[in-house]
């Protein structure tokens, strides 16, 4: 196991070491201590390594992650796992704004709550939030799955494309063109798998599914009031 103390090691050195790992590295376990809210920790990784950050992080932790598993044993600042391609990111605490923004793949698990714009413009990522999410979450989300065990704030799924949203609690309001949809067996299967992988104690049947009404996919003047 490699341990890097961010109070003595510069960020550039930390990220260089992590980014230098290859597919076949035998240095698979990394621990980062004293993050103290630093920005851009463990960004741009591209190897099947496991990185544990002991403490809370600033902006863009695990940004653009590929293959790696990054675990934060505190809370995460804005933009955690933004544009993630693959791999897994787990936040033991809460996450700030735009968690998983534009994520293209992989799994983001937030054990606490996520703030506004969670999953904004997501493009294939799977996000599981054990707590609640804030307003404008999944705005213009294109694909992937957002699972929320708690409640969702205002304007959930505004201008949604093909992403699927599953919420167990209450939704304060739905955004334009976002509607509740039928929960079919294939959705139960998707949820079951995601809940299991996220270590979430919930039954798929307890969730409601939300998705796009697809009325705004091609502009028409009769829809102008919806924007």
């Amino acid at each position: 196991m490699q341990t890097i103390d961010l109070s003595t090691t510069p960020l550039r050195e930390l990220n260089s070491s992590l980014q230098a790992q290859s597919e076949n590295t035998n240095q698979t376990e990394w621990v980062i201590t004293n993050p103290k809210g630093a920005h851009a920790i463990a960004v741009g990784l591209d190897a099947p390594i496991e990185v544990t950050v002991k403490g809370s992080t600033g902006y863009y932790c695990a940004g653009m992650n590929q293959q790696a598993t990054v675990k934060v044993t505190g809370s995460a600042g804005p933009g955690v796992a933004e544009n993630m391609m693959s791999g897994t990111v787990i936040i033991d605490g809460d996450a700030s704004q735009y968690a998983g923004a534009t994520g293209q793949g992989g799994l983001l698990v937030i054990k606490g709550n996520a703030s506004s714009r969670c999953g904004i413009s997501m493009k294939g990522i799977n996000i599981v939030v054990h707590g609640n999410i804030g307003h404008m979450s999944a705005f213009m989300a294109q694909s992937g799955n957002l699972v929320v065990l708690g409640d969702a704030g205002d304007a959930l799924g505004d201008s949604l494309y093909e992403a699927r949203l599953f919420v167990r609690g209450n939704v304060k309001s739905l955004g334009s063109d976002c509607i509740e949809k039928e929960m079919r067996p294939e959705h139960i299967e998707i949820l079951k798998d995601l809940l299991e992988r996220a270590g979430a104690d919930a039954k798929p049947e307890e969730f409601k599914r939300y998705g796009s009404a697809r009325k705004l996919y091609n502009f028409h003047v009769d829809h102008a009031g919806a924007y």
Partner: protein
Amino acid sequence: MEKTPQTLPRNSWTYSPEINAEIRRAADTGIYDIRGGGAKRRVPHFDDLLFLGASISRYPLEGYREKCDTSVTLGTRFAKKPIELKIPITIAGMSFGALSGPAKEALGRGATMAGTSTTTGDGGMTNEERGHSEKLVYQYLPSRYGMNPDDLRRADAIEIVVGQGAKPGGGGMLLGQKITERVAKMRNLPIGIDQRSACRHPDWTGPDDLEIKILEIREITNWEKPIYIKIGGARPYYDTALAVKAGADVVVLDGMQGGTAATQDVFIENVGQPTLACIRPAVKALQDLGMHRKVQLVVSGGIRSGADVAKALALGADAVAIGTAALIALGENDPKWAAEYDALGVTADSYDDWHEGKDPAGITTQNPELMKRLDPVEAARKLRNFLAVMTLECQTIARACGKSHVHNLEPEDLCSLTLEAAAMAGVPLAGTSWIPGQGGF
């Protein structure tokens, strides 16, 4: 019987035939006019400026005999690997999706032959483009279509697009007609639906966040690539200053004549400032921060000739970028397709419905049959020629002003034909020493 004199029919200036036609079109369709290109209205432009060639008070250089350097280095502030260009003219960002694959290939080939860079656009990086562009700038856009760290690392520079001259504050719009299977796949969206590109970045709000976003991108790319920030020409002094504060290596300033693939005509014609009006405030911001020539300034928006290039450089830019002019050089709006433009209800030189995917020149389309019309090798040769001509023209003017490098051109080499341009460019009205409008922005 003597005929009674009649008044001649007279069109209203306010309700001209063009305005009336637009009112009828809007009433019929219920949607605003969407089109490509930049502002078509007459605004103060580089044409309003003239160079003061050397006589006694200045000493000219011999054309074709004395050296006049055109090289430029972009990204000298932080990047480990700045971009070295042979000419101060680059190709502006234009997306695959808006443009056909052969058009992107032609841009790459032509720019590489001329010793300059091309830029991706909304929609991601294609292998054709990377393969044919020796130097490729990768745009980091609010939509993040096709964004991935592999392409960030394959790029030679990264341009964070915050604004665009044709539509500062506006997002993009690629209508369903052009969403083929390949374009849809690159953008993670279904085939045939309108694709809205966001007007703001989803994961940062304001310059302080942008500074941290740049740190993240630098960390992902090992601090090698120059980071450009592209702003629309709206508040150039403050936006340039904030781009510098956020850590830009290069500021790309796009005036209102700058083109776009498709947006509302009302936006293109009514939002933003003319390119000419944007340059001096941006340069002033750099000078006030002690960063002029340290953070390079690339100006775009209606650059069409070597004279335009020379004037932009004289006002303080380090390089320019061309978009629409490059497309015309490739063959866009070529009169050889006149019959087909006629069938579309337009003329060669006025066609701008690029979003419909019916471009007879095969450049702004994804229609496989139309795309075949563009030979990327031949089109690249034309672009190379055009870039060479612009460079020669710029050198000719610079030599006449006594400059051994085009960057040595300065505002003192210029005068203005109009009060408006004199005030905007900060140069004297011709025949006077009067610079109107001085005293702040």
